[in-house]
């Protein structure tokens, strides 16, 4: 389903909720007021504090010169890495896959160290998923596990899960919905679930899942830490009686598990007894799109290497993740698009980026761009360029630019820049 927009509304690309009911006030092609978006969205829509300039070796240059320099680096590399794209449109992502094929690059995104495993079980239909509109219209039991949307996706509760009225949830949150939070600390989201908050120790998610499965199977739940078994039984009871249940999987849960088996087991058990769905709390606005586009193109979500000159041959595996590629120093140049690996990866891993030529394409300055050999400023997608993206639940959302793109100051989109690099190659 493609979500159609009221023509007065814009889409916020601040996170993978892609809220599609944003109004703005524009004065002289500058956005002066943003309505209905959360604070995080407003800061995305109003643009970067430090816009990036086109540079080569730290010297300001014309953007065409920077694009030429980028092409030279990629041409001379034996094993280039392309990374990022979570904040790029579908069009740019498809272009990047084409480029990766052309130059035989390793291609990966942040999902290889965050929500990749969750998306994999959904793409392979190992677990049942649903849309956020289903959640709003039907969900009576909502579980946030290892997630704190109040900070990461501020409108998650108000737009889709707990607070809005829905077709089958007409009586409001107090009567019609139960919200549960399971986390290692009392987050802002946990606070809202009140006595339905389960505070578990660090790295104890798997044990808690096992206990919950026991409770769902009518056994006495046991965990190797202090926890009232009655509370686990109560929780099991709520889940068992759900008409339409949803588990939102946060990074806290993904990080604490070695693999998805415990979650799959829990989902199987829940679906024997009731009706449960899973949605990953995808962060960047189009990270799911990248995984979807990669999946369609290669059968893999991330971590691939194309062979130069033979664009049907693709290798896939953990060794092609950004972390392994950098750790093993297997890449000799990097093209980073809309991402800041120098600040998001552990220093020891990211260090290799300081030894190889790096190109960044980004609207804003980042830690990585400050160390890059070539920087190419791009349009802020969703504001200065349109396109489409995949919401965290898999729905495609199309959007138009918010400001007038005919104005002189607008920078080229990621997609245009990638096209021009390919032409220069």
């Amino acid at each position, binding site marked *: 389903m493609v979500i159609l927009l009221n023509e007065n*509304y814009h889409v916020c690309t601040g996170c993978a909720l892609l809220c599609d*009911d*944003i*109004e703005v006030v524009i004065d002289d092609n500058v956005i002066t*007021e*943003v*309505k*209905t*978006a*959360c*604070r*995080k*969205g*407003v*800061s995305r829509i109003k643009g970067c504090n430090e816009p990036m300039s086109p540079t080569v070796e730290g010297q300001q240059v014309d953007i065409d010169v920077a694009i030429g320099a980028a092409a030279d680096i990629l041409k001379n590399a034996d094993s280039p890495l392309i990374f990022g794209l979570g904040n790029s449109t579908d069009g740019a992502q498809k272009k990047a896959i084409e480029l990766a094929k052309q130059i035989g690059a390793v291609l990966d995104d942040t999902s290889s160290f965050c929500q990749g495993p969750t998306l994999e079980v959904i793409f392979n239909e190992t677990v049942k998923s649903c849309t956020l509109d289903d959640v*709003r219209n039907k969900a009576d039991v909502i579980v946030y596990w290892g997630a704190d949307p*109040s*900070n990461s996706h*501020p*409108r998650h*509760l*108000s*737009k*889709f899960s707990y*607070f*809005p*009225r*829905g077709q089958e949830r007409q009586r*409001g*949150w107090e009567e019609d919905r139960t919200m549960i939070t399971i986390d290692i600390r009392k987050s*802002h*989201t946990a*606070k*809202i679930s009140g006595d339905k908050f389960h505070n578990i120790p660090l790295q104890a998610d798997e044990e808690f899942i096992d206990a919950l499965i026991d409770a769902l199977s009518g056994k006495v739940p046991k965990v190797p830490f202090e926890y009232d078994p009655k509370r686990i039984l109560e929780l099991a009871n709520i889940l068992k009686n759900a008409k339409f249940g949803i588990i939102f999987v946060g990074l806290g849960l993904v990080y604490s598990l070695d693999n998805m088996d415990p979650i799959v087991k829990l989902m199987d058990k829940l679906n024997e007894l009731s009706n449960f769905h899973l949605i990953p709390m995808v962060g960047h606005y189009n990270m799911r799109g990248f995984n979807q586009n990669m999946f369609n193109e290669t059968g893999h979500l991330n971590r691939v290497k194309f062979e130069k000159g033979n664009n049907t041959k693709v290798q896939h595996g953990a060794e092609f993740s950004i972390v392994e590629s950098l750790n093993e120093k297997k890449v000799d140049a990097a093209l980073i698009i809309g991402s800041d690996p120098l600040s998001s990866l552990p220093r020891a891993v990211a260090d290799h980026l300081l030894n190889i030529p790096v190109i960044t394409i980004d609207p804003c300055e980042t830690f990585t761009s400050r160390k890059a050999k070539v920087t190419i400023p791009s349009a802020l997608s969703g504001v200065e360029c349109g396109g489409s993206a995949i919401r965290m639940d898999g729905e495609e959302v199309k959007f138009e630019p918010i400001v007038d793109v005919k104005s002189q100051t607008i920078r080229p989109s990621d997609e245009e820049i990638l096209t021009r690099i390919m032409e220069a190659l």
Partner: protein
Amino acid sequence: MANAMEIYQLLPKTNCKECGKSTCMAFAVSLLSRELTVDDCPPLKGDKFKSNYEKLSDMIAPAKGASESGMIVHEDKCFGCGNCVVACPVNVAEDPLGAGIGRAPTSDKVILRVEDGIVRTSNVHDCRRFGENKILCNGCIVTCPTEAIEFV
């Protein structure tokens, strides 16, 4: 939120009446209702009460922003999640197909809406906590993750 007794404990307790109230306790109540401000107590501004003055200023949020109905929004705490907007029963009743289903408000009659990432109030006289048939609604208080809304 502080209560009158906690405020009273930090006052000079001399009943000097310089603030225009007959007792320090009465002044405490006026502070609580934002009728007067900490600066209306001259002795508090002396060196002797410096730390009490600071504590009181922290305890009592500035009255600016307090609407006629006594609602105060702590803008620095609000991050625009919209929970209060969607939970407010007046918003739901006035705008069932906008705010009521989690979308942008489509009616002028809503009490709460988010602009520039911060909650804004209007039509506060329609708030269920006020007027003749008032009830102790707390829809916007318990749904706020950061305690950004309070009533005085």
